[in-house]
């Protein structure tokens, strides 16, 4: 059996010093290569906290996070940052593209940040990704001049630049109209199939969650449901 891309073992996360709030209560979870998973749950259930821990943007209070079977507990900030950049991709609700930069530059950025400079190979890869998200003709445009859906597609292309094994998407369609949201979901699904990149999509829309091959439901910091999506 191949190693899980990401594994959470008895992960808890607490906030506060005087009044301690336990947001995650012993999460056990494995994300396998090529999975297309949704994470649902009501507001305050701990979805974002869990996503941050899975994305190595935050550390658990107790428990372990393993990437490709390797524990991240003892890694320093530099090692964590490097691992995150090379293994994971991120798509945010508000895209968080670098304004003032072109679509192409935004897509090249994760690779450039990793290697310290832009290269021709990076440019070719970024152009291929922009073609994949059907935005190659907008490559030189400042991202501020793109529509919401286009920006989110650039963000998806950017998330794929370093060929991550897993893309973590936090409400990627939450800020889009239904039609655009459908296109973005279809795009992520297509990339998942073509490149075998795993996706974990946080959403509050049940229908979209059910369309994924796996659905994880989080309530009050605990996984209460982990099953195949009904409409997958």
């Amino acid at each position, binding site marked *: 059996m191949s190693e899980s891309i990401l594994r959470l073992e008895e992960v808890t996360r607490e906030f506060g010093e005087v009044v301690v709030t336990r947001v995650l209560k012993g999460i056990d979870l494995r994300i396998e290569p090529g999975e297309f998973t949704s994470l649902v749950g009501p507001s305050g259930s701990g979805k974002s906290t869990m996503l941050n821990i899975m994305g190595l*943007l935050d550390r658990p209070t107790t428990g372990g996070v393993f990437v490709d079977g390797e524990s991240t507990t003892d890694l320093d900030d530099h090692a964590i940052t*490097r691992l995150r*950049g090379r293994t994971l991709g991120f798509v945010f609700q508000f895209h968080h593209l670098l304004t003032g930069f072109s679509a192409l530059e935004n897509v090249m950025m994760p690779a450039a940040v990793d290697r310290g*400079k832009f290269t021709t190979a990076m440019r070719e890869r970024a152009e291929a990704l922009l073609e994949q998200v059907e935005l190659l003709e907008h490559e030189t445009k400042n991202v501020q001049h793109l529509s919401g859906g286009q920006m989110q597609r650039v963000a998806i292309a950017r998330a794929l630049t370093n060929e991550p094994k897993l893309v973590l998407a936090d409400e990627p369609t939450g800020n889009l109209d239904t039609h655009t949201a459908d296109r973005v979901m279809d795009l992520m699904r297509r990339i998942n199939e073509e490149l075998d990149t795993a996706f974990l999509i946080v959403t509050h829309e049940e229908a979209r969650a059910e369309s994924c091959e796996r659905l994880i439901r989080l309530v009050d910091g605990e996984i209460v449901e982990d099953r195949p999506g009904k409409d997958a």
Partner: protein
Amino acid sequence: MKPIEFFLALRFLREGRSQTLLIFSGATAGVAVIVFLTSLIVGLQDSLVEQIMGLQPHIVVEPIGESEPPRIYEPEADEYVFTRTEPRPGRIDEIGEWATVVETIAATPELVAVSPVAFGPASAVRGQILEPIEIRGIDPATYNDVIEIEGRLVSGEYEFEDQGTIIGVDLADELGVDVGDRVRFVTAEEESHSFTVRGIFDVGASGPNQSWVYVSLREAQSMLDLSEGVTAIQVTIDDLFDADDVAERLDLYVDHELRSWQETNEDLLRALRTQSASTILIAVFVAISVALGIASVLVVTVVQKRGQVGVLRAMGGSMGTILRVFLIQGATVGLVGSIFGSVLGTALALGFNNFVRDEQGEVIFPIEPSPTIFVMACLLATLTGLLAAVVPARRAARMDPADAIKNA
């Protein structure tokens, strides 16, 4: 530093147009003030030194005075005798073996000119007019390289043959004489000597123009009753600020009193040093103001770019990368500001030279910003920008990426 860090820094600056313009303007204004003010003070000091040193040798060798008189009391072993030598009244001290001293000094590598002189008090008389003067007996061949007189002649020639004299323009006015006229000088011993005015000089200072009277060394020795000796030996070297060191070195070989111009003009130098210290202080305060300006704008930029910083961290940007991106921004603001500031400071200096003039329409003193000032201003401004960016950069680098993205 990686190329991507420069790319991000410059793009962030380009993107925040109005803020960038604001901090560039602040840095430019600061550097312009520093360049202009420093050039102004340097120009003023150079002009002052030039004015004073144009009339003074760099080093003067003077006779020590009479040898110590015999003691009238022999002290016991545990006693001390304090003595003071008073000059003999009415007698001018002289250096007898001056030719040897001149020869010794001539071996100095830094030497430009060495010239023996015989100076002493006298009066100029013409009709009922009597003016106190200083007889300045010189060796015309060498003296002009110590203090230029020939180039400052307003009429006549630099010529002393046949009892010729060169006098100042004010004295000529007072006595009502011109080139070719006869004039009489009366010494302290009340001996009268007649001379022909061969030239009239204007050194731009009323004292010398009023009282300096140049005659040949031989005539002065005779008038001042010197037995072939001279009253001083004047020296000029290639860098006047080395005068102290050269005088100290020469003191080992010359058995007379050596005084550098720094020693003679101690008060002036103290005033110049104080002035320089004030300029440095002003530059420091300007730099602090610029630093605070840059820092405050960068702090705002960090807050505005919180989301982008968070995303850069999420996509693998290290804390070091973020830190350097903001440090580069600070340094760039300082560097570019210093370039524009130097240009503006130079323009102000040119404006000063063109528009600030004395009553005769002459430049009061020229301001010429030197390349050294530009280099110093560039270094100071870049360093200031870099230091100003430290706090905002550290703040950006230490940002929690998850919080930064969430709160953007």
